């Protein structure tokens, strides 16, 4: 079992309400229980083929994917439901009850993040934390203090193991 909760040193934004560090098995269960989860995937997955594989495995569990940046280039024709959207727009729309979602089926309740630049995602999460009631879950290599739940700061190889365990628990 990978412990992803040890290092929660903060490097970017600051606030009193902070993410709860979470282990992969618990994170997997949170997603399993979500009514309408969304996996938001950033372009950083393109730096590592293994991250692309893990992304596809998560999506194959039936979770729709919002592909931000140019991550969509690795996710097309893979038998998953992935659509391109800009992450700043997405975060804005997520907080709007009138938005129909990427598929017109309505809004989401639990948002999962993978493959983003640390500083960029932290800003996106800051908006969601302060202005929406959404549950956000960061399964990144870095502790994302503005998420509801987050892995801690991890080395790349530990991160990949953690993702495997996460996938097994969905």
């Amino acid at each position, binding site marked *: 079992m990978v412990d992803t909760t040890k290092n929660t040193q903060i490097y970017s*934004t600051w*606030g009193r309400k902070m993410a709860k560090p979470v282990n992969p098995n618990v994170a997997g269960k949170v997603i399993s229980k979500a009514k309408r989860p969304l996996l938001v995937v950033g*372009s950083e997955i393109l730096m590592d083929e293994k991250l692309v594989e893990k992304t596809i495995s998560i999506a194959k569990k039936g979770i729709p994917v919002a592909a931000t940046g140019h991550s969509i*280039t690795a996710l097309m024709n893979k038998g998953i439901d992935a659509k391109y959207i800009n992450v*700043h727009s997405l975060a*804005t729309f997520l907080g709007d009850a009138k938005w129909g979602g990427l598929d017109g089926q309505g809004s989401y309740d639990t948002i999962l993040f993978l493959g*983003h630049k640390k500083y*960029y995602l932290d800003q996106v999460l800051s*908006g969601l934390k302060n202005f929406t009631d959404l549950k956000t879950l960061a399964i990144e290599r870095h502790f994302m203090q503005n998420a509801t739940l987050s892995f801690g700061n991890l080395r790349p190889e530990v991160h990949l193991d953690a993702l495997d365990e996460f996938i097994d628990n969905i």
Partner: protein
Amino acid sequence: MSDIPNGLFSIDELENVQITIGKIVGAIEQKAKEEGVEVGPTPKPGISALRDWDYKLLSRYKPVYTPVCDQCCYCTFGKCDLTGNKEGACGINMEAHQARETLLRVITGAAAHSGHGRHILHHLIGLYGRDKPIDVGPSNLLAPNTQAVTGIRPETLGDLEEVMDYVEEQLTQLLATIHAGQEGAAIDFESKILHGGMLDHVGMEVSDIAQISCMGMPKSDPEAPLVEIGMGCIDSSKPVLVVIGHNVAGVTNIMDYIQDHGLEDKMELAGLCCTAIDMTRYQTDRGGKPHAKVIGTLAKELKMIRSGVPDVIVVDEQCVRADVLDEAKKLSIPVITTNEKIMYGLRNRSADRPQDIIDDLSSFKEPGALILDFDVLGQVAPELTLKMSKIRDEMGIKALPSDEDLKELSTKCVMCAACEMDCPDNLPIMEAMKAGVDGDFSKFEYLHDKCIACGRCDQACPKDIPILNMIEQASQKLIREEKGLMRAGRGQISDPEIREEGVNLVLGTTPGIIAMVGCSNYPDGTKDLYRVADEMLKRNYIVVISGCSAMDLGMYKDEDGETLYEKYPAKFLAGNLINVGSCVSNSHITGTAIKVAAIFAQRQVSGNYEEIADYITNRIGAVGVAWGAYSQKASSIASGCNRLGIPVVVGPHGSKYRRALIGKPYNEEDWKVYDARDGSEMPIPSSPEFLLTTAESIEELLPMLAKNCIRPSDNNMGRMIKLTHYMELSQKYLGHMPADWYKFVRTETDLPLAKREDLLKILEKDHGWEIDWKRKKILSGPSMKSDVSAQPTNVKRLCKGEC
């Protein structure tokens, strides 16, 4: 209204008493009347004068806040935790506080430009007098931002003083609203942000037109000379004088001294940041060749200092690292500060004899000097450089670690990851250290271009490993090859150029203007800029560039060994690449849009900001890109563009500006305007989709640029061209047709000819549109009509029968 004119007059009975009449209420209107110019409803607008216009923009483009800090510590009631939009002790909530924070940044940026403007104007009036005519090239509309905002049509340097008075007064009013217990509504902070941005463009314009008029800088010249750029173009065997900053006033005295004393071949004069750009514009308007070289952007500052190459450093203002003196001291490089904004605790030597200053600094009695007298500066800086070069040679200054040291330093690393976690881009430093142990330094070389030379890794390392110096030493070969060319800043786009190209811009047959501005805080190195500009230029967009972006663009060459400045001409025509100049030249980008409205469309410009902004919003397909924006100035520049309806995309680091303006394409009611012919409502395409947003990568950015150049006024040919680029760029960089392409189709003639049939099939099959296949016409489906004579406007009073 009074009949007393501005100026000096004496009262006979009161001998020796002179009264100066500076401004008279209604003076702008009176002068305009005498000149036969009409003045619009808002000359010199106060904070509330354009509020209605701002509200219109903000109702479509909603502020999106992403706090960097969830607390407020502005006053002693605090710290207040505002998480979740809670209120602080003074009653302000998170939204309003974030808007207030943004306003503070915007007016800080505007104050930096305007402070620069006031300084250089004062300096130039001292040299040339108030009556010195403004001369910016073959234009009648000399100062489009100034005229649209203030109603003043400046003709002389003296006229610009009143413009600066206005800007400064308004900035003070805006600053006052930051105080605790002032504005409480986010929306009104937002309006103030737009006001501050607008003022910024006036302040920048004053700075640049004053220096263009007096300093022999290129005047709307497409043939402005090419300038050497890059760390590799500095001949370090000669004495090297490096200047850093943004205000070229004092540096011109140095340049004159070097020329007058025949020192040009005996030493190197090179610059970092916008002072460098303006040095290369100095005295080049009559075919003169540039008298200085450009090293590069802020991201090269620490690298250049730590290379030990400079013999003397002169700094002026803005974007100068706070540790220049400390860093320089370590390498026995004297530092001269020349502007009250940066004095580094140095003794004021302005009134001292140049020789005494040279003696004191060259004997290291003092590490540097503050010299505010530019004649003294002009002599001291070059003479000290010549002297220091010999002294430093004899001292055998060792700046960077040797190759042998690199290996040893790598072994000191304990792989704690502190550096990587603190690095703003989380660069893979540990991998480089790992390879370095085996004598492989290629991974340090890989870091060189991506590293913005902030030095945070050095500060973080528990083993005191000089990481940045290691990167620089390992990259010496790359650095030697860093040689490029940049076209010197040409200043404004001239009136005749606007007359020629305006129609193509408004109809969309020139697909758009991409304005690449801002700083060097890139997410992934400098080459991204080159890729973006080259792609858009190939597609016939006009690329306008300035400041740090203009420098970095010149660093790369194509397979034929040409930089983009050599490859593409610099006229204001489709497929041209224009460097307008330094940071303050950004005002010429908004100025161009204002000129299209004023000259091509003959809209009244003086004091008529709203109508001009409305015209630009609906008709001019321009998008700003500040891919490496880091500064407060970049946020004020963007806000000034935004008030004119010009959207701006910043790179991912720009998310730390903590606020964006993003539209909702799915909210149909947001995408409607009036047709000024009869005041009826007309639907418009959801473009631009935002006024300020971020993109994650340039692959995402490129299709965004094409899409957000679409405007309601496009004719069929124009829409077809824009749509083609949007679809092609999405396919090329995102691998698929954009999901929303069909929303921009009004008739079959908006579709690219070669793909028309296929696209019609998709429209029928996927979107249920009705097609007449015999005539290949769309019968039903589009949500808007194609009508080139429609007059889209957001402002009801501009509709027929409304006024």
